[in-house]
């Protein structure tokens, strides 16, 4: 019997590891590949340096009026700097900015424990954030009580308005969407048809139409003299519109859950709502996290459409700012600023959803 002696491990060839190896396998693995790589590098060379030079190197950062930017070749960030308060708070009275800051600061403070593993009362806190926090925020924003001066919704604006619209839209559309999705799969024909009609109606109408109708047509049907807040109407419109999309996303998740899960839940004696809440929805929602977040991101960006009904969200207020004769010609800076703010929020949502997916993955194979 021969005795097997294993070969000693040898290092891989030098051309396969390290920077060289990476370059070879990723950028220059074939002539075509190499040509494409070089072309891409050339394109980057053409576009990136000018952008960096415009946005940073040549940009004007200091000053407080248009004159400061007179000689500059690059971006005039002075424009954003001078108007930043308006971009953030809209036409909210300057002396009351603290109320908005307090509201958002409170949200951040409340949300922190949700990310701490050891914290025991996450469920209660989440309910507090969803139920009590909006009331506090509304009180802070609107005032009129507790010695706070009343600020009309027409003076709300800027990023804070965008966040409010998106927040309300997100918080309202998810549960509504879930209910609609369950309704659409219901065995009860009336519930089912109501949900189908609702979903198909809202999905079939452009959001811009919904907003127009809510602001122009709705008052025609309301009795004379009733003052139905414009912002509230926009919120309801956005929430209903997005809930229809959400319902379809959730329905996809529900359809992906095997029949055996429903049967096992039934066989264990769980009622419909318990089996949905404990068994089906946790799995279905986890499956469709990417779709849900996708809808959230679309919703966040769609809030800009409220500018057509005269609400000044972030984009609208920026547009209004560069229409100011003092700052004519600085629209690019304005749009770039708006885009980067939107990008930061949307990218955070997308990253958060990926982290959440990873965390909820329990290694199951169906």
């Amino acid at each position, binding site marked *: 019997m021969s005795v097997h002696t294993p070969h000693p491990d040898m290092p891989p060839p030098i051309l396969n590891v390290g920077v060289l190896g990476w370059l070879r396998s990723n950028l220059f693995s074939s002539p075509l590949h190499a040509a494409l790589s070089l072309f891409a590098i050339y394109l980057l060379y053409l576009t990136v340096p000018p952008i960096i030079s415009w946005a940073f190197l040549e940009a004007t950062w200091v000053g407080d009026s248009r004159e400061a930017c007179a000689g500059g070749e690059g971006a005039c960030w002075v424009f954003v700097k001078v108007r930043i308060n308006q971009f953030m708070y809209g036409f909210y009275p300057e002396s009351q900015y603290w109320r908005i800051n307090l509201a958002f600061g409170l949200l951040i403070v409340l949300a922190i424990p949700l990310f701490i593993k050891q914290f025991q009362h996450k469920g209660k806190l989440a309910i507090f954030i969803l139920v009590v926090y909006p009331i506090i925020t509304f009180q802070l924003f609107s005032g009129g009580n507790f010695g706070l001066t009343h600020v009309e919704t027409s003076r709300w604006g800027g990023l804070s308005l965008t966040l409010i619209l998106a927040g309300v839209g997100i918080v309202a559309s998810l549960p509504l969407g879930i209910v609609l999705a369950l309704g659409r799969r219901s065995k009860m024909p009336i519930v089912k048809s109501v949900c189908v009609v609702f979903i198909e109606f809202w999905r079939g109408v452009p959001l811009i139409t919904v907003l127009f109708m809510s602001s122009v047509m709705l008052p025609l049907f309301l009795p004379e003299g009733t003052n139905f807040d414009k912002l509230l109407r926009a919120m309801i419109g956005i929430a209903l519109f997005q809930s229809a999309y959400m319902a379809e996303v959730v329905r996809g998740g529900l359809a992906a859950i095997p029949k055996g899960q429903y049967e096992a839940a*039934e*066989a264990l004696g769980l009622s419909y709502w318990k089996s949905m809440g404990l068994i089906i929805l946790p799995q279905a929602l*986890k499956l469709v996290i990417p779709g849900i977040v996708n809808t959230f991101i679309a919703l966040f960006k769609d809030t800009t459409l409220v500018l057509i009904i005269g609400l000044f969200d972030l984009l609208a207020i920026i547009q209004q700012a560069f229409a100011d004769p003092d700052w004519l010609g600085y629209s690019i800076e304005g749009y770039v600023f708006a885009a980067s703010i939107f990008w930061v929020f949307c990218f955070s949502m997308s990253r958060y959803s990926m982290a959440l997916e990873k965390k909820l993955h329990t290694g199951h194979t169906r």
Partner: protein
Amino acid sequence: MSETDNPGGKPRATGDVTIELRGVHKWYGQFHVLKDINLAVNRGERIVICGPSGSGKSTMIRCINRLEEHQQGQIIVDGTELTDDVKHIDQVRKEVGMVFQHFNLFPHLTVLENCCLSPIWVRKLPRKEAEAAAMRYLEKVKIPEQAKKYPGQLSGGQQQRVAIARSLCMNPHVMLFDEPTSALDPEMIKEVLDTMIELAESGMTMLCVTHEMGFAKTVANRVIFMDAGEIIEENEPHEFFNNPQSDRTQLFLSQILQH
């Protein structure tokens, strides 16, 4: 009642009927799946149901806990007749446990949570009590060390044993098994069958749809053969295997016992 079984481990006194099917018919659309099924199951009895695929055997036991609806006849479980009345259905489902071919464990919950879910939410047991009971049953099926794992991390045989423990946690009087070993690799079948044999020895009333004829021979009081939605033959196992009455049964047995 602390356990489903009686402490002595002897079968309960047989004789009183716990499940009764009287003239049950069922259709899937135009297709007549169950034709005039009459069956009385005594307390503590172990019944094996076999037959070719599509013969209606799964459908029959699925009617017993109303996963399927029958259209004619009566099904009475522990004195409760199954009707459209949700209360009756809930009552029956509390008493009847079910084990599925594909285990149907809840993949987003740990083994322990799988077992505790229903006792907590349906029987309203305090969490601690439910967990203690669940651990007892997990010990019984010999996998207490897997309690904190997720089903996806277990082998098929382990998953099926968890599924059995999960059903037992509801303290059922009757256990239904719907081809519990058909989805398992050969070497895992034994561990599940051993668990079922142990359960049978503790006096549980069992209805098993299975093709494990060895199991039928050792455990069953009665073997039922179904074909085309009808009960063709029923007999005690020795007679059933050695002296089948109908030619259809003979054909079936010769086919499955050949290899």
